[in-house]
């Protein structure tokens, strides 16, 4: 699990960067550039969106990630025009859109509830935006057929949405959103109503689709795994503000604060005191007295800090080594390809450890003593 994830995380960042900087020229970018400037939306005293700034490149796949109530859906609704801004502005290709009603913005949109028109067939649903735009019948039929082909729905063209499975319905909804080849596609938690297996396959489908159509995609989710898998960049939102924006790898490895560290991926947050600092390496000591090195880009050199150690970066051994510290196993679960171990350090801190299953390592028992260690490159000092 850990490795494929890392691979996949690595792919979008690298792949799309290459195509955008002109390396692979087969991808045609038709997407708009979107700029959100000091956007604000209030409900009474509550700031749903609190002075957000966000620049989205043409053709970029950007994910708004955050817990419920963080303002991500509100921001999407502001972009779609379902709600109006209380302050700031939104520019699409340099032009402000606050006076443009939803139906004239020309965006495609996919909803969590699918929102397929139950009184129309699949074909009629997908044709709806074309009819509204005044595209003639012959072109409409051709475009609908093409789009259904892309979404592998050709066999279902004359079905009613209620006769289809959730996954198929969501593919129809996606077909309806892209049939106009819109410059911007907004996706509001489109996969959260689907089961896990289906979700993963549609994730890849959307990812590939993004490569094909070249639209700018704004994707809202509360699922960090989904965000890591699909995005060019992720904007992590909390309490109406963007707390960090960056490529998936960056967000995962170098979160800007505790919130991002704990929201994206599993994490061990270890309180430690700075002993000394040499260049970018600091020597730290935690409550249990374990002394370890960590890399830090920041200028802090004294006091207490929080260190992030991802569970898969912790090495375990049965015998003590020079740099290890002893822990007591409190739970050990075999999850398939990995072992998930919870252990207590002598100072009381709980550590979460994930390691791949190998023949040499038996599943530890509760109460076993293990020796854990991590290197300076495995830690990230949070401010």
């Amino acid at each position, binding site marked *: 699990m850990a490795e494929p994830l890392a691979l996949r995380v690595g792919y979008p960042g690298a792949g799309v960067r290459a195509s955008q900087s002109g390396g692979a020229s087969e991808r045609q970018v038709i997407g708009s550039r979107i700029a959100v400037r000091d956007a604000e939306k209030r409900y009474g005293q509550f700031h749903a969106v609190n002075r957000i700034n966000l620049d989205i490149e043409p053709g970029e796949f950007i994910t708004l990630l955050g817990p419920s109530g963080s303002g991500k859906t509100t921001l999407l609704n502001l972009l*779609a*025009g*379902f709600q109006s801004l209380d302050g700031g502005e939104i520019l699409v290709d340099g032009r402000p859109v606050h006076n443009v*009603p*939803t*139906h*004239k913005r*020309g*965006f*495609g*949109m996919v*909803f*969590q*509830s*699918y*929102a*397929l*028109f*139950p*009184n*129309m*067939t699949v*074909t*009629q649903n997908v044709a*709806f*935006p074309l*009819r*509204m*735009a*005044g595209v*003639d*019948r012959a072109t409409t039929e051709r475009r609908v057929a093409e789009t259904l082909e892309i979404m592998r729905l050709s066999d279902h063209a*004359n*079905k*009613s*949405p*209620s*006769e289809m499975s959730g996954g198929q319905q969501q593919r129809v*909804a996606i077909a*309806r*959103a892209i049939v*106009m080849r819109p410059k911007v596609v*907004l996706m509001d938690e489109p996969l959260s109503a689907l089961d896990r297996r289906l979700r993963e396959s549609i994730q890849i489908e959307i990812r590939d689709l993004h490569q094909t159509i070249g639209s700018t995609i704004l994707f809202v989710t509360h699922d960090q795994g989904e965000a890591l898998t699909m995005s060019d960049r992720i904007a992590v939102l909390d309490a109406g503000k963007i707390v960090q924006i960056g490529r998936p790898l960056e967000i995962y490895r170098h979160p800007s604060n505790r919130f991002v560290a704990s929201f994206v991926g599993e994490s061990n947050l270890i309180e430690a005191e700075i002993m000394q600092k040499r260049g970018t390496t600091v020597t730290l000591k935690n409550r249990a007295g374990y002394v370890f090195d960590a890399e830090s880009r920041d200028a802090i050199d004294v006091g207490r800090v929080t260190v992030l150690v991802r569970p898969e970066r912790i090495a375990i051994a049965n015998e003590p080594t020079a740099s290890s510290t002893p822990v007591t196993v409190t739970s050990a679960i075999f999850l398939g390809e990995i072992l998930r171990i919870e252990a207590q350090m002598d100072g009381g801190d709980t550590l979460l450890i994930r390691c791949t299953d190998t023949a040499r390592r038996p599943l530890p028992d509760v109460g076993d003593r293990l020796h854990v260690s991590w290197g300076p490159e495995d830690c990230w000092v949070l401010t």
Partner: protein
Amino acid sequence: MTTISLSEEPRHQASSSLAMKLKNPALLLLPAVAFLSFIYLLPLVDLIRISISGPSWLTYFQRVFAVPLYWESLVRTMQISVTVAFLCLLFGYPTALLIHRTRGITRALIATAIVLPYFIAILIRTYAWMVLLGRNGPVNKFLVSIGILSEPVQLLFHRGTVLLGMTAVLLPLMVLTIYSSVSRLDPGLTRAALASGAGPIAVFWRVLLPLTLPGIGAGFLLVFVAAIGFFITPTLLGGPGDQMFAMHITQQADSVTSEGFLQALGVVLLLITLLVVAIAGRFLGLEFIWGGRKLTETTAGKAALAATSGTARRSFGSAFADAIGWPLLRLFGMLPASCGTWTVRLMGGVVVALLILPIIVVMIISFSSASYLTFPPPGFSLRWYEQFFSDTNWMRAFWTSALIAAVSAFIAVGLGTCAALGIVRGNVRGKSVIMLLLVSPIIVPPVVLGLSLYTLFLKFDLVGSVFGLAAAHAIGGLPIVVVILSAALQGVDSRLEQAAAVHGASSLTVLRLVTLPAIAPGLAAATFFAFLHSFDELVLTLFLSSAQLKTLPLMLWGDINYRLNPVLAVVSTLEVLLVVGGLFLARPVLATSQKAT
């Protein structure tokens, strides 16, 4: 030991299986079904029997269709009912949308403005219109003051007033029916249509309207069916040329000679009602009567049908759509979104004013110091309240009504609760038929019911008895109780009951400790509405009461026809207060039962 236990066992099993049978909640349906069979079905059957008891079975019916007076009145009734249903639809749909689109306190206020009149007696609401449109009423005063009229004119007693009055009385029914259909829509659909480039008009035409069509159909038919049996409003607001069919039945009821013919009139009205309901039920499912949803969703079939018929009629239909339909929709898309919003607000506002203003005017007039009806009142006093409370006739009528209503509510709630338990928890075939029987009194025109009961009451000497009237009122109270309590019971998770049973509670204990507390609010609401139904009932009372037994609505009816004075406004105000109080108490229940149905 073993032999004993062996011999014990079969007997134990037999008794337990009998006990099991007796414990089947479906048995709880029996009292209500028996009650309705005796006091509701039997008289209706008897009504039909008398109507065909002439020399030939067709004799009386031939007279109904041969005499122009009745035939024309039947046509007129249809015309008026269709017009009223259309007017209700025209104004009701935007109002339902308005409730759906507003939020918070505004929504609560608009919803109250619709629901409140729904529970106020038709008699009182009609009286309010008479006050409003009278020679000294506010409408005349206003028109004179702004110079449109030079002197007050007669605004009452013609076709327009009948249509206005009936539309106002039946609007809440339409709004509530459509609203329940609109509120079930996924709000994402509107957004999806907008995001697909559809303007507000196109969203309405292509998405909102097709999807709420069943609600529109249900509302239209419910209003139509109610309108063809209407009697109070056209009698009070109409002129000589606005005689509706139900009015003939009450007029004929006074003359003894018309036995048989009278019943034939009733049967004609009943058959038309049943025919309309049957046709509607064919398309909407008969659940529309009590606001339920059709159990088998047929949208799938419809869409598939649309697709196949689409290919058949492609050439003409699609050419028409391409040439006119879609471009027109796109053209309307140019309209600013505020157009639709303002249409909805304006029409919704008109409806709210139409429903609330008469009530407010009547409440103000009840405090008038003038000795006749005039608005605005020259001064304020409590003289009419003093007169009401010191008049022994009014007070006796009030207490009689309260007593009858209490007994009636007791009957309706007792039978209705058992029936609801049986319907929801029981395991019995033909549930929908039984539910239909229990709820059908809603759609039978009260005039027909009153007529049929009169014969039964004569036979058993129940005319003018408190118990008889209470039982008659309970016919209409029962459906209210069954609908509210079925919804409440469906809201109770049956796993809660199972959990209690697993932990050792007997079925009666489960009922007492789990089920009843869970539906207690629903029970309170049902009791209140059953009480109110009887308290307001006039039409059945007209048939079944005697000179010695006068109820409050009967006194009101007599006074309205005799002289319009502010005492009636006092009674109306007290009724409004009663309803407001009851609705306030029932508020949480209404919210949940709305969700459950």
